[in-house]
């Protein structure tokens, strides 16, 4: 809910009870006022009723006096007429009539004695006879008749006089002589007289006062009496007046005015005095109070709501800007300071802005310091790595140089044909190769770093490539100290063969370096999830998880100083693998050691598959080398394996013979100076063996004398190579033996 809505609710919550209380007060007041009004009206109407009763009583008393007149004892009607005229002189609008028992009027005080008068008993006609007064009976016969019948005084209802032709009422009393009703004496009073009487009572202003006969017809009113005489009251007032006497009631007059109405019924006359007060007048002050209250409440609520909106806006706008400030602080921007109408909000805003600036500065400062520290640490680490790299590089270069320097000295001093010179040359060859690989790796890393290494991709079988590399290494004796196992399946890759071989060589080199002699190194190639996966598992001391994360970084070496080489081999592996769209990872192996896994995207096998065995170059042979000199044997094996020949090696004559019997090689290269028997003897035995004529025998001698050659031929050798054996000479001899 928005703040403004809260404020509106607050205003309503404050105003509503007040309003309810005010309404309660007003209602109470209204009730009280009405009670007062009610009581006042009832008092008034009763007083009026009494006044009319008093008037009627006075008239009745006068009638009683006249009825007792002595003139009537003897029937002296003329005298009685005179008495009556005198008695009625003071009474305006009223006269007395004396009827005999037949209803014939005998004396009328308003007429000269003896004047003809209508007989009401005969002349009386029902209402409607006089068009002016459709509800009023014409002629006042009924009261006379009633008096004659009952012998008791009667107060009539309104009737139209046959004498005056105007609305009147009659008060009739019997004139009794000797216990018998001799006459009926009637005082006829003009309805107008009652109207005057009502006005004389000074009813409350605006009130409507009516005297109503037993039939419900108006005898007189204080207002507009002449016109309303003989008409009924308004329906609602008439209904009210028909009830037993009681409190006021709301109703509507015949003129259609809404009024409060009270009435009183006279026991003397049976007439009803009706008092109506226009509602508007009676409750004018109340209505005004109510209107004021309602208007005031409405204005109060409106003002409250307006204030809520205005104040709400004045509060919510700064709060919104606080939120904006907080947001910009969260984004690390400068918070805007807006002036707010609410002091607390402004203080809060100020505090927020200040805090934000401090936080921002603090964060910025911390960030700067962190960056500076990180940069420094990075620089330190880089400098240290560089120093270490340079130290290692110098160490790594000095070692082969030391060997080369010594070998150079030996070559300078020794007979070039001597065994010493041969050995020294081997050292030079090996160390040169070693150094060129070192320098090659360095160049590769630098080429990759500047993005200048291009891949020469071709489609080939990774399993076959790894197998061939392994057989070369095996042949060269590099696996001699370890149990190297190989498990490959054909998986084709689209890759730079030389670079992939570089990857394998580096990993294999690494594994051999860190695995103690006699332990196993496992090499495998298989296809997993559409990738060619090469695994090299060693049994070295393993690798920590922490080291595994950075072992592929440039110049990082695991292990003691210098032990790990330049620290670029694995970095090169990683970069080469990545250049091929592959990856390399390392994990601890079960039972110690590490497993390096290279994944390269596999490629579909070429549609035209080369004939089986094509991986072996044309003219590949199975070659046995029998040589006791490790270096010489390794060199030979390596060169032959590189040319795709299948190579087996033996260190002495007897094991050479055993291997030849077992493997049935195409060619045997046999050193003449073997420890257990000389090469001639080995050749003789091979020739003598089963299938011995098929095998090609090559003698390796340190002495190139013609005599040696002849001795070799005699012993059964097909060819003779003087050491040091060059690759060209070896190829030439193998070709000759085809």
């Amino acid at each position, binding site marked *: 809910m928005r703040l403004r809505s809260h404020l509106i609710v607050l205003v309503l919550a404050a105003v509503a009870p007040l309003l309810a209380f005010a309404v309660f007060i007003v209602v109470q007041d209204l009730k009280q006022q009405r009670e007062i009004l009610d009581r006042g009206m009832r008092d008034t109407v009763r007083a009026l009723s009494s006044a009319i009763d008093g008037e009627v009583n006075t008239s009745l008393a006068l009638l009683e006096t006249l009825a007792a007149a002595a003139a009537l004892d003897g029937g002296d009607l003329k005298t009685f007429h005179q008495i009556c005229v005198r008695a009625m002189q003071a009474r305006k609008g009223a006269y007395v009539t004396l009827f005999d028992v037949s209803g014939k009027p005998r004396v009328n005080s308003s007429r000269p004695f003896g004047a003809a008068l209508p007989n009401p008993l005969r002349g009386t006609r029902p209402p409607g006879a006089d068009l002016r007064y459709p509800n009023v009976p014409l002629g006042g016969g009924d009261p006379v008749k009633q008096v004659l019948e009952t012998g008791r005084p009667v107060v009539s209802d309104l009737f139209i006089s046959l004498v005056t032709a105007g609305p009147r009422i009659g008060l009739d009393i019997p004139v009794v002589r000797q216990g018998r009703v001799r006459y009926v004496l009637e005082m006829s009073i003009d309805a107008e007289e009652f109207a005057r009487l009502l006005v004389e009572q000074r009813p409350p202003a605006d009130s409507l006062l009516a005297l109503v006969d037993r039939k419900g017809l108006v005898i007189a009113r204080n207002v507009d009496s002449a016109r309303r005489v003989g008409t009924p009251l308004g329906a609602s007032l008439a209904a009210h007046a028909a009830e037993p006497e009681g409190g006021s009631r709301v109703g509507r007059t015949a003129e259609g005015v809404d009024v409060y109405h009270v009435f009183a019924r006279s026991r003397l006359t049976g007439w009803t005095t009706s008092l109506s007060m226009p509602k508007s007048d009676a409750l004018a002050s109340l209505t005004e109070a109510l209107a004021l209250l309602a208007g005031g409440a409405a204005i109060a609520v409106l003002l409250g709501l307006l204030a809520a909106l205005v104040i709400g806006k004045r509060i919510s706008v700064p709060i919104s800007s606080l939120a904006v400030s907080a947001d910009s602080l969260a984004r690390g921007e400068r918070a805007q300071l807006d002036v707010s109408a609410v002091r607390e909000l402004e203080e809060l805003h100020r505090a927020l802005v200040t805090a934000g600036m401090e936080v921002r500065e603090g964060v910025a400062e911390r960030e700067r310091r962190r960056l500076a520290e990180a940069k420094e640490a990075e620089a330190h680490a880089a400098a240290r790595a560089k120093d270490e790299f340079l*130290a290692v590089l*110098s*160490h*790594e270069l*000095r*070692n*082969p*140089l*030391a*060997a*080369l*320097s*010594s*070998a150079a*000295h*030996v070559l300078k*001093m*020794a007979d070039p044909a001597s065994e*010493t010179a041969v*050995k*020294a040359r081997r*050292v030079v060859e*090996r*160390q040169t190769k070693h150094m060129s690989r070192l320098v090659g790796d360095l160049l590769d890393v630098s080429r990759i770093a500047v993005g200048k290494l291009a891949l020469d991709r071709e489609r080939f079988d990774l399993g076959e490539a790894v197998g061939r590399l392994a057989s070369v290494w095996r042949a060269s004796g590099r696996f001699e100290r370890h149990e190297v196992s190989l498990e490959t399946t054909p998986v084709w890759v689209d890759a730079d063969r030389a670079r992939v071989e570089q990857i394998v060589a580096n990993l294999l080199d690494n594994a051999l370096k860190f695995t103690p002699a006699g332990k196993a190194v496992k090499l495998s190639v298989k296809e997993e999830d559409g990738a060619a996966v090469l695994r090299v598992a060693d049994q070295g001391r393993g690798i920590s998880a922490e080291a595994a994360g950075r072992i592929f970084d440039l110049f990082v070496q695991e292990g*003691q*100083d*210098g*032990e790990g080489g330049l620290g670029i081999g694995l970095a090169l592996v990683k970069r080469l693998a990545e250049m091929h769209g592959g990856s390399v990872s390392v994990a601890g192996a079960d039972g110690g050691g590490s497993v390096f896994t290279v994944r390269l995207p596999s490629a579909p096998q070429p549609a035209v598959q080369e004939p089986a065995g094509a991986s072996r170059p044309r003219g590949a042979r199975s070659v046995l080398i029998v040589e006791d000199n490790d*270096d010489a044997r390794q060199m030979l094996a390596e060169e032959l394996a590189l040319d795709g020949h299948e190579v087996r090696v033996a260190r002495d004559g007897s094991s050479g013979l055993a291997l030849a019997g077992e493997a049935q090689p195409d060619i045997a290269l046999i050193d003449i100076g073997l420890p257990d028997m000389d090469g001639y003897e080995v050749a003789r035995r091979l020739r003598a063996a089963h299938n011995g004529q098929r095998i090609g025998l090559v003698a390796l001698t340190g002495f190139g004398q013609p005599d040696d050659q002849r001795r070799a031929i005699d012993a059964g050798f097909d060819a003779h190579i003087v050491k040091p054996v060059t690759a060209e000479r070896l190829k030439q001899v193998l070709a000759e033996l085809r």
Partner: protein
Amino acid sequence: MILLVEDDADQRLALKLALELAGYSVREAAHGGEALALQRERASPVLITDIFMPESDGFEAIAAFRREFPETKIIAVSGGGQRAKQDYLASAKLMGVDATLQKPFDIEALLDTLRALNAG
């Protein structure tokens, strides 16, 4: 008779050949422990040892020789490296070796050193 301790086979071989050409007889060891065993078998008057070797390093060998064979002249060679922020060869000198040579060294320099030590 010289006892040569060097873990790198080619360096060992080349140095051995050079020393033999110069007329010395040479016994080889791939690490300090092996050298000590050979020395106990038959003492050589001169020990030429590399300093950094994986299995038991040159410092151990130097310390053991100094202790057991104080008469033996020791020449330490190294391709560089530091221990406790000090150059290997400087450390070796502190341990009392008779001479040090930084790899790669001229064989003549080694032979001069041997002659100077009047040993072998």
